[in-house]
Structures are given as C-alpha cells and as structure tokens.
C-alpha cells in the first residue's frame, strides 16, 4: 500500500474544495460562472454569464435565464475553475509549494483559499508581464480570457488582466489580438481601462500607417497625457523624431507624476533618442526608466533596451557647472 505524500494530500483537499464548491451550486446552467453585484447592492454568489450584447447582459441564475441592462450591473467576479487550477499546476503558473502555503492557512475558509490560489496564479502571470515575458503572459492569459473576454467591459476582477493581455499583444505586434480586446475594453465604464483601450486602438492604427484614424481616436481621449503620448507615437511613426521628442517632453513637464503615462512616455523618449543616433541619451533614459519604475513591465522593457545598448549601472558623472567660455585671445 502506498502512502500519500503531504502534497498529494493537499491537492486532494483542494480538489475536494472544488467539488464542494461545485456541489453547492445546484444549477446546471451553461455559461461562464461568476458572482454578480447588482447596482441596487444585491449580490448573487453564482451566475452563469452567457452573452453581452447591445448593452444587455444575459446570464443564468438558478436555472433561469435573465437579461438585464448593463447599467443594472455594478460588477462581476470571476473565480478559478477546476480545469484552470489543473492547467495552472501543469504549466507551473503556480507552484505546489505556493499552493501548499495557502492551503496551510488556518485563518481562511476553503472557498477563500481557492480564491487566494487564483489570485496567486494571476500574480505570477503578472510577474511574467512585468519581466517582459509577454509571450508567456499571453499563453497564460489567452485561455483565461477565452470565454470571459467578451465580458471585460463590465467592471470585474480580471479587467486588469485583460488590459495586460491587450498590452502584451501590443508589445508582440499582434494587431488582431490588440483589436479584439481594445474593442471590448473601450466600452468599459472604468476610465483607465477605456483610455488604455482607446490608446491601444489608436496605436494599431499607427502601426497600419492610418494616422487619420489614430488622430480620430485621440479625440476621444480625456487624459491629456494619453493624448500627448499618442501624438508622440504618431509623430515617431511619421519619421519626425524631433517633434515626437518635444511632445514627450510636454508630458514629462506637465504630467511628471502621472504614473499611468509617464513610464511609457519616458521609454518612448529613450527610443526616440536612439532613432536620431543619440545612443548615450537613449542608454541614460532607459536606465532611468528601469530604475524609477522598477517593478513594472515598462521598467522591464527599459532594462532590455538598456542592456542591449551596452548600458552599465553607474550613471554618467555630473559635469561641473562651467560658465560659458570667455573669448580667448
């Protein structure tokens, strides 16, 4: 007779938790399982989201299908499925040790543990993104978003992951991927998500060389910094690096504490310096982005650029404040 290892026992416990969780759900409806918070404050622990069309959300609850206007829904919450858990384990998105650590906690119940495991796995995916491993992040996020993607315009706990996925596509030059998520997210009531989606849409247009379309999207943006970022991106694509640099400087001067747009604006500045052959400037700018925004994917991208350009950690020595040269004899 074989004895189960502690890990096997933990995993068995997690499986039981899943089973219990599913048993508690007596319905057999099809759709994407989620919790739902209505605008009247009422929450429903388990619904099955089926479609989102023409501003109406259709879902099943207790075996009954319902269609409600989107403004009646405040948010939805997605949880991990058993298949996703297995997939995360298989792909080592989350390690057995991490699962064991959460399982060992005594201060939370089983359902909360499952949610913590889910959050941990998402955190690990985010770490891939932050490290600039966009392909790995896409691989992990695509399956997560396969069925849920269409609901990302509703405020939900995976919206940031959808934004992340869109950004990954952008970084990888996958225009179709960007388009798919930008189209959904630009309908979001979350201004940050909407802005990012609009910029994503515009950057796709820039990539296609359709500057007119990009300009048109820019008009919809409320964030001045985002508008300027887009303007600079268009100018760069139109081979006007000097103009683009000046536009980036507008962002830096007027929105220096806008942590949403500053990192990528400064990284764009590094690329613009490179465009005009000012390598030292590009290296120094990349180094600053890497250091100032450490822990973000932009810092990861900046680090790649920095090391590609042969950057070394120590910044340039300060030059003394020399007065202008006097006329010489």
């Amino acid at each position, binding site marked *: 007779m074989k004895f189960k290892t502690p890990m096997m026992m933990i995993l068995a416990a997690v499986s039981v938790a899943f089973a219990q969780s599913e048993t508690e759900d007596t319905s057999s409806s099809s759709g994407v399982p989620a919790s739902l918070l209505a605008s009247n404050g009422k929450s429903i622990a388990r619904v099955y989201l089926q479609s989102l069309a023409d501003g109406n959300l259709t879902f099943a609850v207790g075996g009954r299908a319902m269609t409600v206007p989107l403004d009646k829904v405040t948010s939805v919450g997605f949880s991990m499925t058993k298949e996703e858990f297995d997939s995360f384990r298989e792909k080592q998105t989350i390690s057995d040790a991490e699962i064991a650590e959460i399982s060992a906690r005594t201060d939370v119940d089983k359902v909360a543990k499952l949610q913590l495991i889910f959050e941990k796995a998402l955190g690990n995916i985010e770490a891939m993104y932050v490290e600039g491993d966009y392909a790995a992040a896409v691989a992990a996020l695509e399956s997560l978003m396969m069925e849920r993607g269409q609901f990302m315009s509703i405020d939900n706990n995976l919206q940031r992951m959808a934004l992340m996925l869109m950004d990954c596509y952008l970084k990888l030059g996958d225009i179709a991927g960007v388009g798919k998520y930008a189209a959904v997210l630009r309908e979001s009531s979350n201004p940050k998500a909407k802005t990012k989606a609009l910029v994503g849409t515009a950057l796709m247009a820039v990539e296609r060389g359709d500057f007119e379309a990009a300009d048109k999207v820019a008009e919809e943006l409320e964030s001045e910094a985002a508008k300027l970022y887009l303007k600079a991106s268009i100018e760069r694509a139109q081979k006007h690096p000097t103009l683009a640099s000046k536009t980036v400087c507008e962002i830096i001067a007027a929105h220096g504490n806008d942590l949403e747009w500053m990192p990528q604006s400064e990284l764009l500045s590094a690329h613009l310096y490179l465009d005009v052959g000012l390598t030292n400037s590009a290296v120094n700018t990349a180094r*600053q982005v890497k250091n*100032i925004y450490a822990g973000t994917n932009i810092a990861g991208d900046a680090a790649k650029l920095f090391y590609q350009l042969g950057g070394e950690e120590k*910044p*340039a020595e*300060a030059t003394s*404040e020399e007065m*202008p040269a006097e006329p010489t004899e």
Partner: protein
Amino acid sequence: MCFKNKKRSFIFSLVVASMFFGAVANVMAKKDEPTPTEVLKKALVAMEAGKFDDAVVSMYTYLGMVEDSEMPGVIAIAQDTRFKLAVLLIKAERIEEAAAVLQNYIDLPLAEKPRQAMKMLATCYFDIEAYEECVTAVTNALYYNDNPVVEARKVVKGEDSKEDKFKILDDKDPEPDYTQDELTTLYMTLAESYYNLNKWEECIDPYSYVIGHTHSDQRKGYSIMQVINALISIPSFDRILEWVPQLYRTDARYDIRVNLALINAAAALYDAGEYDSALPLYRMILPREEVLAFQENKMREIRIAHGLPPEEGAELTADDLLLFGAADERTAKTEEKNVKTGLLDEKPKELVELENLIIALKDLDPYEIHVKYRMADLYKTIERHWEGVKFFDIVFAAEPESEVGERSIYEIIDTLIESLNEIKEAQERAFAYMGKYKKGITPRQIAYMLTGHYQKHEEWASVKPIKPYLDGFVRSDDPLIIKYDTELYFMQAIADLVQQKYAEAEAGFKFVLDEFPGSHQEANCLYWYGMSQVFQQKYAEAYPHFETYLSRFPSEPFVDECHYEAGICLFGQEKYAEAMKRFTYVIDTFPGSSVYPEACSMRGDIYGAGDVYEEKDYLDRALADYERAYAKSTKINQATYSTFQAAEIYEAEDKYDDILRVVKRYESDPRWVGQADVAKALFWIGKTRIQQKLYDEAVSTYLDAIVKYGGDLRQDGVDLMIAELVKITAIYLDTEQTEELKKQLNSALETSQNETLKLRLRVTLAKLDKAEIQLGETLLKELPDLESAPPPVLACICDASFAKKDYSRAAELLQIFHDKFEDSEYMRAAYKLRGYGQYAEKDYEGALQTISDAQGLYGTEFDVAWAQLMKAQILLDQGKIDGEDGARTANMNILNVPAWRGVPVAQATFQLGQVEEAAGNLKKAFAWYQRTYFQYKGHAGGYWAAEGYLASARILKKLGPQYENDRRNTYRAMLYDRYVNDLPQAEEARNALGAVETGEIADYLATGGVSNIAVKVEAEVGGEAPSADAGASGSTPVAAEESK
C-alpha cells in the same frame, strides 16, 4: 556628551536632594505635627486648588517621609504620588525633574501605570533632547508592553525576599496595553531619537513602523521623508526609490516642510550623482501655489470645525504634537484682533499653527523655478537633451531676466547646437533672444557661442547675420562685456576676410581697432587689418600696419608673418630690392616659420626677374629658392607655387626633363596626396609633350585630365589645359583628328552629371568651333547664378557681354574672378569688359585703374592691347595730349609693341589722327588718318580704314575750300576701295558724292575697273609726323591727287 552628563548629574542631585529633603522632613515630623498622611492631604488640596508649586513641595515632602516604608499600602500610595508629581512637573515644564521622578516610579514596585510612566518618561527625555535616554526609555516601554508580568516581577524580585508583601500587585487590574496610537507615537519618538543621534540605519525600522500604522497622512509622509533622509546619510541610495511612490500617495506631499525636505534630499542625491533617485523626488515637489491652496482649504476646514466661520476640522493629535513640536495647550493667542473687542482672539492652536504656516509659505521665495532649473540641469547632465531643453525653457519663460533665466536660455541654445545639432532652431532662439535682450553678458555669450559654432564648421556666411544684433547691444564699461564685444566684432571681420570680402573685412578690423583700443585682440586685429588691405593690393596702406605690429607687439605670434607681409607690400609697390632684403631676413631669421616657403618663393621670383640681381646665375638662384620653398612646404599652395614657378624657369631654358622631374615629384609627393593640383601638373606634362613634339600624347593627356578633374571648380589647371588643347588642335591636328576629339568631348558631355565639368566641356567645344560668344550669350540666360561657373565659362560670358556692349554685370564678373580665380588667365576678359563698361559710363578714373590692374597682370600681351588703346583714348577725352603721360605718347607706345601689330596698331594709328586733330594739327591728323586707310584696310574687316577715309575727308573740309576736290576724291577713293565700300561707313561717302556719281562708280566697278585715285596733302613734317606710306605709290608724305 558633556551636556548630557551635566543633565544626568543634575537629575541625580535632584533625586538626592529630594531624599535629603524627605529625611529632614522625617526628623522634623518626629518633633512637629504633620504626619505623612497630612502632608499628602495638603498636597492634594493644593493640587485641587491649582496651587501646583505648593502641591509639588508637599509631594516631595511626603515622598521623603515614606521613602523607607516597606508597607505595601504606603508604597502603593507613594507610587501614585510620584505619578501625580511627575504630571505636575511636566505641566510646570520641569521636565528633567519629572523624568527623575518617573524613573523612580518605574524602578520601584507597585506602580499602577508603568506603561504610561514609561511613555511619559520617553517624552520627557525627548523634550530635553536626551535622545540616548529616550531610546532606552522607549525600548523599555515597548518591551514592557509585550512582557508586563515578567517585567513587573523583575521589580519585585529586586526587593529580594519581600515577594509575599507585594501580592497586592496581582490583585490590581492590569494596566491596559498601549493603544495603536500610543505604540505609533512611541515608535515615532524612537525613530526621531535615533535620527537625532545620527543613527541612520537604526531609525529606519521605527519610521517604517509608523509609516505602516499611522492614520495621519502628514505623519506618514514626514516619516517617509525622514527615511529617505536617513538613506541619503547612510548612504544607501538604491533603497530610496522604493519609498518614493509611498510618499507620493500621502497628503504629506502638500506639506511645505516635506516639499522643502524633498528639495534638500533631491539636491543631496544630485550632488552624490544619484540622478535616478533625485529625479523622482524633484518631480514630486509641488509648486508653492498648489501647496498653499491645499493648506488654505485645510485651514477653512479647521475653522469650521471650531465653530469659526467657516470650517470643520480634526483634533490635534499627540502625533501632530510630536511632529510639529506643539505643547499640549489647545489654544493660542493669535495676531488677529477681534473687531469688536480689539483684543487678540483665542484660537485653536492647530489653526494658529496652520495660519502661521500659510504666512510663512506666502513669505517663502518661490522655489518652483529653482526646482525646474535643477531638473533641467539634471537632464542635461545625463544627456537627456530634449528634456533639458524643455525644463530650461520653462525656467526661461518664467524668469527671462533672472540669473537662472539667462543661464537657461544659454543652456537651451548650447544644447541645441552642441548636443542635438538643431542649428536652425538654435539660431532662431538666439536671434529672438538677442533681438529682445540687449543688455548684459548673456546676449553676448549667446552671440559668441553661435559665432563659435559657425567658425568651427567654417560656415562663415552664417556669422554675418549676427552683426545687426551686435550693433543693437547696449555697450558697457564692464571689462568682460568689452572683451566679448571685441571678440564678436573681430570675428565678424574675420568672417568677411574668409569670405574674401576684403573691403568689408578692412572696415571691420578698423572698427575693432578704433572702438576697442588696447583690447586683447589688438595685435591680431592689426595684422589682419593689414592683411585685408594686402588682399586688396593696397600695399602702401597696409605696409605701416605690419611695421606698427613689429614695433608694438614684438613678442606676439605674427612677427614672422608681419616681416613677410611687409616684404609683400614692398614687392607690391615695386620696391623689389627692399622686398628682397625683407624676404632674405625672413629666410635667415625664421627658418621654421610657416611663411618661410613663401618668402623663398617670393625671393625666387625676384631673382628670376633678373632685375634686382643681375648676375648670370640669377635663374639658378631663383631655382634654388624654389627648391627651398618646396622642401619646407607644409601647405599645398606653397608646394604648388614653387613647383610651377620652377617649371616656368625650366621652360624658359628648354629644360623639359627638369620640368617633368619637378612636376612629377609634386604629383607623387605623399605630403600632398589628395591635395595636389594634379590638373595643373598634367597641364605642364602636356605642355612639355608639345615641346617635345609628342602631340598625340599631349592631346590625350589634356583630354583625360579635363574629363577627370574638370568637375572641380578649383582645379584651374584644367582651364589652362582647355586653352592649350584648343591651341594644339588648331595648330597640329587635322580635320579628322579634330572631329574625333570633338566626338570624345561630346561623349563626355553627355555622360557627365557634374555641372562644372559640363560647362567646361561646352566651353572647350565652343572654342574649337569658335563659337564662344554664342555660348556666352546662351549661358547668360541659362545660368541662374555663376557659382558653379569655371573661369573659361566666365570668360565666355564676358566676351558675349562685350559683344553686346552689355556692361551691367561687368563689376560682378570681375569680382568673382578676384574672389575665386585670382590667378586665372581667363580673368583678362573680365578686365576688358569692366574697363569698357567704366569708359562707357565716363568713369575715367575707374577705367584707368582697371587698365592699370590689367596691364600690371598681363603687360603687353596681345589681348590686352585694348587697355593701352583705351588709356590713350581716355587721355584724349581728358584733353591730355602732350608729354609722357599724354594721349600722343600713349598711342605711340602701341606702335612700338610687336605683339600689338595688326588691329591694335591700326586703331592706334587712327587714334593718333584724332590726337593731332584735337591738337589742331590738321595736316598731321590727315596723314595719320590716311595712313590708317592705306595700311590697315585688311584689319578688323576694314573698320579702321573706313574710319580713316571719313576722318580724312573731315580734315580736308576743315582745311578749307581749296581742298574740296581732295575731299571728294577721298570719298571717291573710299567707294572704289573694295575693303570698305560695302561697310556702313561708306554711306557717308555716297551721300557726299550724290546719286549720279555714286552710280557711275558702281557701274565702273561692275565692269571690273579699279581706281588709282590718290590724295596728297603737304604734311607739316616734324619729329612726331607719321611716316606712313600713303597711296598706291607708297610715297609719304602724301599729296591729294585725283586721277580717274
């Protein structure tokens, strides 16, 4: 440490004193009345009555009385009394005494509120800046809080075997743990104490605790700032960045003290070269107005909260007290007087503090610009140039006339030029600035920077647009400003000089010498002033400047050059012996000078002329000097000159092998790779081949060289080859060979993309076809400007203009030659056009100068006969007839020059007739005119002969009626003369003779008849009388004679 020791001994004395006082009281109690109970009661009464000092005295007395008691109840009461005493002492600001009492309280058993006492003790030590003790007190308090029983029992155990007596301890309700707020305050106290003890690393953990637990954004922000400051002091810069975003998320960023601390921290990081850490701190610093708005809003809220119009607010917490040093009173006097009472209002202390903060904030000098400037400087330092420009621009826009504003505009332009290579934008910014701000040093520095850039890149034309701005600057006595002005104007003159605008350069250098006497550039300026005159051949004017330089600045660097240039000036004034002496001085004195080769060449030229030195070896001496010059040449022009001057001498001596030797040496010398005038060398090789009768080789050499080097405007050797090629083609090539050559030239023309080469090839072809004038007319229309036109093209244009009598561009064409092709043989065409243009405008002085220049360059060469003819004509027009400088001599000189035989002599002969006619010597005039039509009818298409006929007829008319027949005969002779009778001038003869006679002559000529009409006039024979063979008979002087 000394201060602390004193404090400690003071506290110790107090404790001893109280014990002594207590002991005395004890003794007295034995005698007198008050029992300990009564004393304590007295203390409590005094306390309730607000007589705190009396209460304190009584409490000390009581404690002294019961000090030795071992009864738990008494001990407990004594402890309670100590606690109350400590509170009273703190209230009375007798902090050190309070600390001593509290320490006693803590050290003795049965303390009911040890936590509070420990907290108070920590506060006392902090207040009296006893930070070491404070650290111990806080550490003890925190430890006690976590281990109260163990600690309490330690106190009891300290009393040895008396444990049972203190069972009371266990019966008491335990003192509650510190609240979270109290803990946070204790950690804050600990952190601040460490910080004040410069224990940077130790303070970080307690600050971190505060940051993690406080509810006050202000305190959190302050703590983060302190952590950052500690990390700077450690130093541990790489840990700073993790705190910055946290700070950003607190309202503390609106605290002006935090902002000022940010400025200091950022500056410290900047100074340490930690730019990546400094930058986010600088970015976080808020503008004063934003901070002010935030604090004013907060003040309104506080006012409402205290029932003052209009506000709401929060209580001043213990944290705030600790942070901002407020005492524990809740109200304070304000400076604001009550309108009704006229008395100062009582206000909440926090409100008063905030009001004071706002007042201080308003009084504070704006710091935003300083911050922006530091950021700009930071960006510049780390080569983020566009960001630097942007932030400098913000500073400049805000304070264009402040020191940082001026520095900023300088940095902007410097960055645009030096780092970003955005010259156009730099110039626009500089011009805009210099146009608006005309005072002080900065506009000068900017002008200097711009000038320096153009100088470095040899963009001299771009220097000149700066001058109007210099002229607009407000002058100053400031020596530095004068220095800048001197330099800037000096560079303006240099720009003119380099662009060969010598007259402007001369004026510019003179301006500097006049306006800035004694300047740092005076010596240089004097030298270049002289040089600008030398370039204009104003040798006599230039000479004294070089001499002045030598006498005033004998140790300045241009001494050798000045000696040399003085020699040039002497040479230019035809003072060859003096010049030779000067060149010899340079050669002997400055063998390492840059002008040594030139001095050798110049002396070689003087030797070669054979005038100053007339010995037989004069050519050998010349050649030796050219050799010296070549050997020491460091510049290509020095080598080129000496080589080809030597070639000239060898040519004169028919030493063709030597020509080939020096030319080939020059061509292959590694010193001149890529610089040598190879075209000129090839010209000489070709020329030598011709002399050696190797015509095919010569043609081939020329053709190849023209195609290969003709695209370079400066290769004037190519132009010489064109002339030579045309010449040898005409002389040595047959029709077939000529056609083949033209075919090759056309082929090269079709394939070439180089405009200069194409122009040269077109000229060559036009010359071979004798169609230069047509080509010149075409090019005049075709070329928008003459920038890419080589000398032969310019000459064609001159010839075409001359043919059309269009002198409008004569001055410009001659100037182009002067500026670009001063040594070109083709310049003579420009001189001619210019001279004729000036004569047409009756600018006689100008024309005479042009003639003098042309004759100075070309002497009596065939194609400059026009100069002497024109000179004679001008003298005649000016009425100057007689003497050496008169028109007669001028014309006579032409007759004596072999090279001018032919048309020039024909014209001179005719002009001599005009001279005598003007002088009233009609018969002499007649003789010259008659000689013109007798001798030169075959020249110039009979033009001068026809003129001679008509002028003769005119003289005969002037001589009177007795010569009427002679006059008519002259006309008849003209009409019979087949050289002239179809010229336009013959019409005058026809009119004079009438239709009938004219018809008869025509009929006669139609039969093939000839005339032997001769006109003879008795000339007044004199020394200057013409001796022309007149008439068919060839006799002279001639007499009018009619014969049909």
